[in-house]
C-alpha cells in the first residue's frame, strides 16, 4: 500500500515536473537590450569620470594639506582655501600666535577633506588601518581635553595638536590610493554572495 502511494506520489511529481518544463519560454520586452546597453554606458562614463577626477582631487588635497602645514605656522587665515598657499619657510613661534577661531577653521576644513577621502577611498587595511585608528584615538583624546574648560593658551595648543593629527590622518588616507586598476568597493563585496 505504502509502495503504491509512493509510486503514485512520484508519478504525480514527475507529471508536474514535465508540465512545468514544457511551459513555453517567456520573451522580454524588445527594448530591454537597448535599456541595458544605456545603463552599461552610463555606468562606464561615471566610472571613467571618477577614475579621472578622484586622483586629481587627492593630489590637490595633498597639496592643500601641505599648504595647511605651512599655513599652520602662520597667522594668516587667508592662506587657507581651495588654492594652496605659497610655499613659505615655517617661522617658529608664529604657530602659537594663531587665533583660536583660525585654528578651529583649519580643523574643520581638514575634517571635511577627510570625509571626502573616506567617501572615495578604499578601506584601509593592515598596518595603515592600525595607524589610522591610533591617530583617531589620539584625536579623540584631544577632543576630550577640549571638552573641558581651560585657559586660552592651553586650548590653542590642543587645537594645534588636533590639526597636526588630522593632517597626519589625511596624509595617510591620501597616500592609500583606491584608484585606477582596482575594482570599486561595491564590486568586491559580492564575490562570496554567489554560490556555485
Amino acid at each position, binding site marked *: 500500500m505504502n509502495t503504491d502511494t509512493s509510486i503514485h506520489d512520484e508519478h504525480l511529481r514527475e507529471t508536474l515536473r514535465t*508540465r512545468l518544463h*514544457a511551459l513555453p519560454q517567456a520573451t522580454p520586452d524588445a527594448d530591454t537590450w537597448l535599456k541595458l*546597453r544605456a545603463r552599461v554606458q552610463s555606468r562606464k562614463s561615471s566610472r571613467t569620470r571618477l577614475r579621472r577626477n578622484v586622483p586629481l582631487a587627492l593630489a590637490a588635497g595633498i597639496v592643500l594639506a601641505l599648504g595647511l602645514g605651512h599655513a599652520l605656522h602662520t597667522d594668516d587665515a587667508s592662506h587657507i582655501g581651495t588654492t594652496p598657499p605659497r610655499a613659505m619657510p615655517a617661522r617658529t613661534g608664529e604657530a602659537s600666535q594663531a587665533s583660536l577661531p583660525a585654528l578651529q577653521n583649519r580643523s574643520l576644513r581638514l575634517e571635511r577633506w577627510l570625509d571626502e577621502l573616506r567617501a572615495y577611498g578604499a578601506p584601509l587595511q593592515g598596518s595603515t588601518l592600525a595607524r589610522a585608528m591610533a591617530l583617531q584615538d589620539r584625536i579623540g583624546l584631544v577632543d576630550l581635553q577640549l571638552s573641558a574648560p581651560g585657559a586660552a593658551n592651553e586650548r590653542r595648543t590642543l587645537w594645534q595638536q588636533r590639526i597636526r593629527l588630522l593632517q597626519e590622518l589625511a596624509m595617510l588616507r591620501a597616500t592609500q590610493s583606491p584608484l585606477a586598476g582596482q575594482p570599486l568597493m561595491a564590486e568586491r563585496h559580492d564575490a562570496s554572495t554567489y554560490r556555485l
Partner: protein
Amino acid sequence: MEDVTSNPSFRQDIPDSLLDRLCEGDLEAFELIYRQFEHPAFTLALRLTGQRETAQEVLQDGMLKAFERIRQFRGDAPFWGWLRQLMVNEALMHLRKHKRQDHGAFDEERHADASALPGPWQYADAQTLERALTQLPDTARAVLWLYHVEGYTHAEIAAQFGRTTSFSKSQLARATQRLRTLLAAPDDAADTLIPVTGTAP
C-alpha cells in the same frame, strides 16, 4: 496545440574567447551573451517573481551585474550556472522587497487525501497552468520552480532562503496543494490568496 518544444534552459556553453571579451568590457560580446540567455533568464525571473514588470527589472539588474562582475567568475563551473545563480539571487531579492504572504493554513490531511487523485495539471493547458503559477504565493512558487525545473535540492533551496530543508519541503507541498486547488477550481481558489506587503523573514 500548446508549444512543448521551447523548454527554457540555461545550459548553454559559451566560448572562452567570448568570456574573455566580456572581461575586457566588450559591449558586443555582452550583447551576444545577452541574446543567448535573454529567454531563459527572463523566464526564470518571471516564474520566480510571477510578475512581468518585476521580471523585466530582474533581467536587467541581473545581466548588468553579470557584466560588471564577470571577473569574479572563476571558470571552475559553467558560465550558465554562474549566470543562473545571479538571476536567482536577483529574483529572490526582489521577492524579499515586495513580499506577498500566504495566509491560508496548510491542510496536511486535505493534501494527503488529494494526493490520491491524479494531478489536475495533467489536463490543464499551458496557459491555465501559467495563470495558476502566478496565483501561488511568491515563496511557494519560487520553491516549486527551483525544485522541479531548475533542479535545486531542498538543501540548496533552504540555503537560498536562509531557512531549513523542512521549510523548503513544506513550501513545496504547499505549492503543490495550492496548484492542485487552483487548477481544480480556478475562480474560487484565487480568492484565497491575499497579496500583502511585508518584510523578509
